[in-house]
């Protein structure tokens, strides 16, 4: 197992290196960070030249990449084009995203597995039809539509009924909120309910379908029929023999989706005004003085590392779920 992990980690580093180079080149060539200055008729040529030198844009692309790489291997993510250190922003954004993605993934996984089992066990029964229909509705609804509906028809209605703000629609916390640890936790939860619910609805919908299909496959397999024929109780067959196998595909999907959502929940973040990793990337590509290569590179390195890590975790989980799988 150790050798397997090391091999996968080494492959991950190579992938990361290639991805960082390609991203650097593509992002750097996609625009001109000095465009805003050039568009301003009052910005003098001397100022534009000074900004070019400050941002290192007078170096060749390869030189700039090398500079970035040599700093990065020393743990320095560099500065944004706005002159701010990238690293503190990166961890802050990652923290914001995790506040949303982690609970959403756990809740969605539990619901998806439960409803997937229900759908498979009670295939074509009324509750399966209801579950299937709801899953398709949530799967097909764009996140921004879901966000608007939840704000207008859940949050605002609940708040009006309660006579105070129980659910917030913008941001991950109340600006300048001070209070006890419990009060701050409550404030965080009040802000997180809607974005978490959005991600849960979108994620569970797809995952429950995987779980249902996977469990149906297993339940119709020979070894399960054999176990039932031998008189093993249905519940025991389902939990002990079928479910463990049926969890393998959905584990892969959840692990990969989790890693992807961390870097890619852009729309959810925009809809709820959360400054997470998605907006971090977006800001690096579309904000003032963009493209901001160092910001995009920081996003890439972290999200790529998380993807590699969760792939690895998924592989390790296979072994736990299925004792036949051995890595050497």
């Amino acid at each position, binding site marked *: 197992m150790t050798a397997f992990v090391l091999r996968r980690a080494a492959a991950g580093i190579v992938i990361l290196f290639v991805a960082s180079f390609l991203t650097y080149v593509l992002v750097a060539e996609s*625009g*001109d*960070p*000095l*465009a*805003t*200055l*050039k*568009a*301003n*008729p*009052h*910005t*003098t*040529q*001397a*100022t*534009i030249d*000074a*900004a070019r030198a*400050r941002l290192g844009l007078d170096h060749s692309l390869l030189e700039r990449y090398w500079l970035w790489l040599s700093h990065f291997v020393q743990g320095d993510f560099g500065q944004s*084009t*706005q*002159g*701010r*250190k990238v690293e503190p*922003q990166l961890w*802050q*954004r990652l923290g914001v995203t995790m506040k949303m993605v982690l609970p959403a993934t756990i809740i969605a996984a539990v619901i998806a597995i439960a409803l997937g089992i229900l759908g498979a066990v009670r295939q074509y029964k009324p509750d399966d039809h209801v579950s299937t229909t709801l899953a398709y509705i949530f799967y097909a609804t764009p996140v921004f539509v879901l966000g*608007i509906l939840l*704000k*207008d028809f859940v*949050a*605002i209605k609940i*708040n009006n009924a309660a006579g105070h*703000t129980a659910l*917030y*629609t*913008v*941001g*991950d*916390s109340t*600006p*300048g909120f001070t209070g006890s640890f419990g009060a701050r936790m409550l404030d965080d939860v009040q802000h997180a309910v809607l974005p978490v619910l959005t991600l849960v609805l979108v994620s569970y919908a797809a995952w429950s379908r995987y779980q249902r299909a996977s469990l149906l496959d297993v339940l119709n397999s020979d070894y399960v029929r054999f176990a039932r024929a031998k008189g093993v109780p249905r519940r025991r067959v389902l939990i002990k023999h079928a479910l463990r196998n049926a969890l393998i595909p959905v584990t892969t999907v959840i692990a990969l989706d989790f890693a992807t959502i961390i870097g890619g929940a852009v729309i959810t973040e*925009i*809809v*709820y*005004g959360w*400054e997470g990793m998605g*907006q971090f990337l977006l*800001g690096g590509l579309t*904000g*003032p*003085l*963009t*493209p901001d290569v160092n910001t995009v590179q920081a996003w890439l390195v972290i999200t790529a590392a998380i993807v590699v890590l969760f792939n690895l975790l998924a592989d390790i989980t296979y072994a736990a779920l299925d004792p036949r799988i051995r890595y050497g």
Partner: protein
Amino acid sequence: MCSARCDRRSVRTVAALVVAGTVLLALAACGGGGSSSNGPTTTGVKGATKTVAVKSGGSLTFALDEDLAGFNVLNASENEFVLQEVLDPVWPSVFITPPNLKPTPDKNVVSSVKLTKKNPQTIVYKINPKAKWSDGVPISADDFVYNWQAQSGNPKYKDKGGKPFEPATTSGYNQIKSVTGSNGGKTVTVVFSKPFGDWKALFSPLIPAHVSKQVGFNEGWASFNSAAKVSGGPFMIQSYKQGSDLIEVPNPHYWGPKPKLSKLVYRFILDDSQQPPAVQNGEVNIVNPALPGLDFYNATKSIGGFQVSVQPGLEFQHIDFNETNPYLAKPAIRHAIAWGTNRDEIAKRSAGEIDHSLTALNNRIYMPTQPEYKDMSGNFSKFNPSLAKKTLQKSGMTMGSDGYFHPNFGPEKGKPFTLSISTTAGVPVRSQIEQLFQSEMKDIGVKINIQNYTADKLFGTIGPKGEFDLIEFAWVSTPFASGNQSIYCSFQNTTVCGSNWDHYADPKVDSLFNKALTTINPTQAATLYNKVDGLLWKDMATLPLFQQPQLFGWSTKFGNIFPNTSSTGIPWNATQWGVKKS
């Protein structure tokens, strides 16, 4: 000026930045906001009324649709409209621009400002003896000297580390010969090397010199640090959470009228469409979106206890002609395009959706909401497609069987007369303008191809390199007309009038501009600037379309919120804001 409004609105800016100070002169005189009888009256602007009595305390949240690039609005890279709004009540300004767009000295900052001599032009500023920064350092001549040097464009003045300063503009400061202090630093005498008519645009705002010298003008203000907390206004920045919010609280060391609110929160909600639900949920109290559309207007208009006001801003949409194109180099062809463009219809069917009174704009230098505005368009004010066709015919073009004119000369000889139009992609108002323009040009026999780009591509490459035939964007202006010179002065090369992307040139315009710039009398200067615009119409340098409306919305439980269409923004009188007394 703020190029950032530009960035967020995908427009370019015109004139020198004039920042709002914090309170009106009248308020300073009466010692604080209060009843309707003793506050300032903002006249001449729709939606502005007398002040009302407000309570002390309370928190107000203002939604901004862009995060801050830094904390030094005078720096080229951080010069954003949103930062301007944040700094309105923080950095002192000699002159503020109230909603009537007439610059007024802030008596809390200067006891008097006098033009003492016309030749050489000399201005004497007497600083309010009580004026000091929140760290206790007096506001003095040192601040004026540093602000001048940093924005002078003179390479002999250096930033920290010996690097050249990177100011957003050098306009006016580059004409100052000397800035000297006397009377213990409380009197400042500014002498110009040549007259500068818009001198009221200068020293507004003032960056704290002692702090900026220490941290550096270019790079010291990029992040939120102790420098950004120093205030010379009624509020000071307490905290900043990148991408989330910025909180201001009253500056305990402020010597003028104290703010009524105990907390002013700027909340960054980057997607405008998410602001109305936040308003409805009580999380936001003021909105001023970048390019408001009908959806936003309808969504906010229907919210109870929330007032919405749409007002023409100091910005306008226009179409530019690239005169390096052999056809557009001919004034007659530009005239034909102008006559063939139904500007009233374009105004009505694009931004006019939220402002039904919107009509074509007939001046580039002044907007109809400014007292200096005059219709200088002459016979171009009327849509005249038949004259457009006749003019194209006279210019050496023949109508083809395909419904398009075919030039009898130039590189496109014998082919349908085709031009491309470019603007920033994905902006609904701009797309509507282009499509209407395309349809109108087809009616007069001109084929238009639409080719749009991202904002950075359009403003970073396409515009500066002249890779367009026609280009559509907006100019954001201030009450100071001098900033227009760099747009319309005769193009020579990238460093001399390089911002004139159209390569338009007319020595008469140059001469008239120079005369206007050095005219100190505002009335005479306005007459000259209007004459400049008359020449620009005659030459058809650019085609103004309409004044861009701005939308302001605020919760009616708060009082004394008066929209301000200048680059100062709505927080120009944040000191007076407060929860209404019932």
